[in-house]
């Protein structure tokens, strides 16, 4: 499985219009098939921006993104992104939201039955079967987030880009969704980039953890988590890594110096 990279960013920089500086410094990144990378970093550092570049939704100011060695010029049909907000369409039921885009021209062509199967399965996997006919304004924040995840899963992508997908979930549902993610990765060999604020979440699902920091953002830390999944039992080993990451994250946070002054 390991070997060739499936998604690669080479010296990518990003600068939004207007006269702020770069958001991303020359940034390098490589994701292997079946690998899960967790991305951590302080709020506003540029995590969502990076994910949009990797998704082909935002052209980098310089550098390039490659998928299986091919330069990326726009969104790729085998890549699926879950945005930081659920982005459900308010005029469609949950079921139709999950099915949204499956029949688009540039997506892999599926039979009607296959589409229905995938939609049913994805909705069941995120535990929303009983809400399938509800409209988004009838869903709680956590339900909307799971619906958005189901929309990604129904496409059975090769690469899954997730922007804080479990942020609005309670502890129990969150851990169910983390298990679901692990199952999808092991069943389908999906490669995942997961942005999260939750270090424990990153530790549970990632093969590698990348820490972004600074302005413009660059990679300021990287950890390989070489433990078999699921990892609920490897508490001590994860705990050591956790301490390490927390202190690096502290140093990366813009509020770091202020915090220390107050602490004294």
């Amino acid at each position: 499985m390991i070997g060739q990279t499936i998604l690669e960013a080479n010296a990518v920089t990003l600068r939004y219009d207007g006269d702020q500086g770069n958001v991303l410094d020359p940034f390098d990144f490589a994701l292997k098939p079946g690998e899960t990378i967790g991305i951590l970093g302080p709020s506003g550092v540029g995590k969502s921006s990076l994910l949009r570049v990797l998704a082909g939704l935002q052209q980098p100011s310089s550098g390039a993104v490659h998928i299986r060695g091919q330069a990326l010029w726009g969104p790729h049909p085998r890549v699926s992104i879950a945005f930081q907000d659920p982005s459900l369409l308010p005029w469609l039921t949950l079921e139709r939201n999950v099915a949204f885009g499956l029949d688009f021209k540039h997506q892999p062509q599926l039979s009607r039955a296959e589409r229905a199967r995938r939609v049913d399965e994805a909705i069941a996997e995120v535990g929303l079967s009983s809400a399938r006919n509800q409209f988004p304004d009838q869903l709680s924040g956590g339900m909307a987030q799971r619906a958005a995840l189901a929309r990604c899963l129904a496409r059975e992508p090769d690469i899954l880009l997730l922007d804080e997908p479990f942020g609005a979930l309670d502890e129990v549902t969150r851990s169910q969704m983390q298990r679901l993610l692990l199952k999808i990765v092991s069943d389908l060999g999906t490669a995942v980039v997961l942005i999260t604020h939750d270090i424990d979440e990153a530790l549970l699902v990632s093969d590698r953890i990348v820490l972004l920091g600074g302005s413009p953002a660059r990679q300021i830390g990287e950890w390989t988590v070489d433990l078999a999944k699921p990892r609920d039992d490897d508490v001590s080993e994860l705990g050591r890594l956790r301490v390490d990451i927390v202190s690096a994250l502290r140093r990366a946070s813009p509020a770091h110096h202020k915090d220390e002054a107050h602490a004294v």
Partner: protein
Amino acid sequence: MSVSWATADPPKAVPAGRPISSSSAWRAALLRQTIGIAGLAVLLVLWWGGTKLIAAPGSFLRHFSPLEAVTTLGRLATNSDLPIHVLVSLRRVLIGLGLALVIGVPIGLAVGRSALLNSATSPSFQFLRMISPLSWMPLAVMVLGVGDRPIYFLLAFAAVWPILLSTAEGVRQLQPAWLRLAASLSATRWETLRHVVLPGVLAHVLTGLRLAIGVVWIVLVPCEMLGVSAGLGYFILDTRDRLAYSELTAMVLVIGLLGFLLDAAARGLNRLVTHRH
């Protein structure tokens, strides 16, 4: 005032499983409707008083009393060409609105999308919009001939502005997240239009349609007073020529009633769509 009314009769224990908000909203709606009906009753009394009490016996005004109008209306509805005239007018309204939608929605979509196009067209649209459609009447008849066609033109001309401007506003208010979602799914231009833009602006289009119905209904009657031999406007002039005053009053009633129903239908359609949001 409405507050003291609402609190004068505090809600009793709310049945289990029924949220308070929905039951009190329901009460508020009922209250609103009751007040509305009371207002209509006052209007009727004023009408009746004006034609029966204030007007001297034998006065011309006495021909216009509500009682006579209603009995005449009953007779007209069963025993005359009135239903045909109503249908002819409604058909014209539908065709006028249809034309306005076919023209107004695409232009509105384009104008809403492009700031350049918007700047280029906005002054012209505001200028044209402020010309009473009726002032085009002689021109329309000269160009399109006598008959239904100038009426279609005038109605469509009156209806196109609210539809166009609402559609453009709807496009401006489309959520960037929806468009980003479509882009992330490699949607073609057509797919984005069909699955995101059109459903996203539908509520605005319907708001424009409702405004358009109001305008069209007002413009319709005078339009039908020239060069046609059927329709509500024609019928009004006809009753005048025949000195059939109670029929004239009955027609005024019919026009008001139909307009009211059309507006209610547009509102219902609007609510149907926005409720699914």
